């Protein structure tokens, strides 16, 4: 049984367009289905507006999906009551992109990391404090800096604080939503290495949402490509990057600048009329699916 099994997930936003016009429906997530096995690093890639972040938020019910099922260890979390959902969130955590706006500037960083434990009423004060110190060490922060405020830390350190907070409740699934996108490349490499190390040590499962295809190619075992609310291609990272089959995947991969100045530049322009947007995913190779 997969750890996370998303079936037919739909999220529509209704946008009013003025007094005399009918409201428009934006299909941000339009019938998305995928499953993540325990211990996987699953990449969800796409450009702005593809619906990748909305998908992540719907899984945690930070946004309420319009329809579909989100099975976590076989149970549909969309049917959970509020209190049951709160319990389920111990197992499913999220790391956000922006290390500047996602940490409360008026709280000491030790309290920020401890807060999930307090909310879930776990442990005594001393036990919580010990856990926070342990988490600080785990993510490579000085336990001596617990009493400092977020503004005293660099972007990379703040992202480590966000990671420590996400790990406080010992989750099984971590959704990393552009978790390293805002960081400088050398800091990014360190935080990515931390995420990979933590996965091994804590047997974490990741849904890694990103727009950086090179990064996803480096660290994810499987990847799904989203375009306008739908998954257009999904498969083992190596197979998908070696043989992209959907016209959008091909255009996307061909747009990534090569690091070799002499690499032939063969941009593939996307011709939206060249494929059927309604086509369902079908298996085109072992574990390789494309909506063609």
């Amino acid at each position: 049984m997969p750890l996370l099994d998303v079936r037919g997930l739909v999220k529509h936003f209704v946008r009013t367009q003025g007094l005399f016009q009918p409201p428009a429906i934006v299909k941000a997530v339009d019938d998305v289905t995928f499953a993540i096995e325990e211990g996987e690093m699953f990449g969800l890639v796409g450009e702005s507006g593809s619906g990748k972040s909305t998908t992540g938020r719907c899984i945690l019910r930070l946004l309420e999906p319009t329809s579909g099922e989100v099975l976590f260890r076989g149970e549909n979390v969309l049917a959970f009551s509020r209190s049951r959902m709160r319990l389920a969130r111990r197992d499913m955590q999220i790391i956000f992109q922006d290390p500047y706006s996602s940490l409360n500037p008026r709280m000491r960083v030790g309290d920020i990391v401890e807060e999930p434990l307090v909310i879930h009423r776990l442990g005594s004060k001393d036990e919580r404090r010990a856990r926070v110190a342990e988490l600080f060490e785990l993510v490579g922060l000085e336990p001596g800096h617990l009493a400092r405020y977020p503004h005293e830390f660099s972007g990379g350190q703040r992202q480590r604080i966000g990671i420590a907070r996400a790990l406080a409740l010992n989750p099984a699934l971590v959704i990393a939503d552009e978790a390293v996108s805002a960081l400088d490349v050398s800091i990014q490499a360190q935080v990515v290495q931390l995420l990979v190390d933590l996965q091994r040590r804590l047997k974490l499962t990741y849904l890694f949402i990103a727009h950086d295809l090179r990064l996803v190619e480096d660290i994810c075992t499987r990847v799904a490509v989203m375009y306008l609310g739908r998954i257009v291609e999904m498969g083992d990272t190596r197979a998908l990057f070696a043989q992209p089959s959907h016209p959008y995947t091909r255009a996307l991969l061909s747009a990534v600048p090569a690091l070799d100045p002499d690499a032939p530049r063969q941009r593939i322009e996307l011709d939206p009329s060249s494929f059927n947007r309604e086509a369902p995913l079908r298996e085109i190779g072992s574990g390789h699916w494309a909506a063609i």
Partner: protein
Amino acid sequence: MTEAPLLDVQDLTVSFAGAQSTVTAVDHVSFRIAPGETLGLVGESGSGKSVTAFSILRLLQPPGRITGGRVMFEGRDLLTLPERDMRQVRGARISLIFQEPMTALNPVMRVGDQIAEALTVHGMATRADARRRAIELLQAVKIADPVRRVRDYPHQLSGGMRQRVMIAIALACRPPLVIADEPTTALDVTIQAQVLDLMRELKERFNLALLLITHDFGVIAEMADRVAVMLKGRLVEEGPVRQILRDPRHDYTRSLLAAVPGRKARG
């Protein structure tokens, strides 16, 4: 470099005075750009690459202050030029493309008028003529239906189209040098590819020299002839793009390249 340089930056030094201490953001930086050449200036946040660009155009805001060096351009030192003459350089001889077109464009002015303004301000065209030129420029940056688009406001355009408008404004006066500060960083990768292709084409067509500031080695590999690497206000390495990417000499350049994702998979 056999040709005389178009831009010759010598020992440029910029300081930011704080309450207690003074920070040297750019520390004796020197480089040259030949006509038609693209120099990629790379570095991480705080390395001083954008401060360098702003200093060349003397657009630095206090407490930043140029404390030394020379910026030779077309035979004159821009750092000693009277402000009135400097205004004739900015936009007309050296123009600037920013990362975020939404903040760089005037939101309440039609894009055609913004392009026309770039021309009339420098006396490069009459008002009537400027409108026609604006349409030509939108055509040059490959905006479909330019006759209609000149009347659009920035918010009616997509991010990629806004960046094209920025490029049209930058090219309006046919400057020999363009400074582009992270011109494609805010764009999606497919849009970035289109804008880079466009910039390469326009560079050829107008024989533009380009100072390209970026943190992305992929963009460098696609665009630059030479690369200069900045670290904490200093140039630590400079050379032809192939040498820097394949055989970097400085430890910092090596570590920076090693951190770029996508090298693992392709070896």
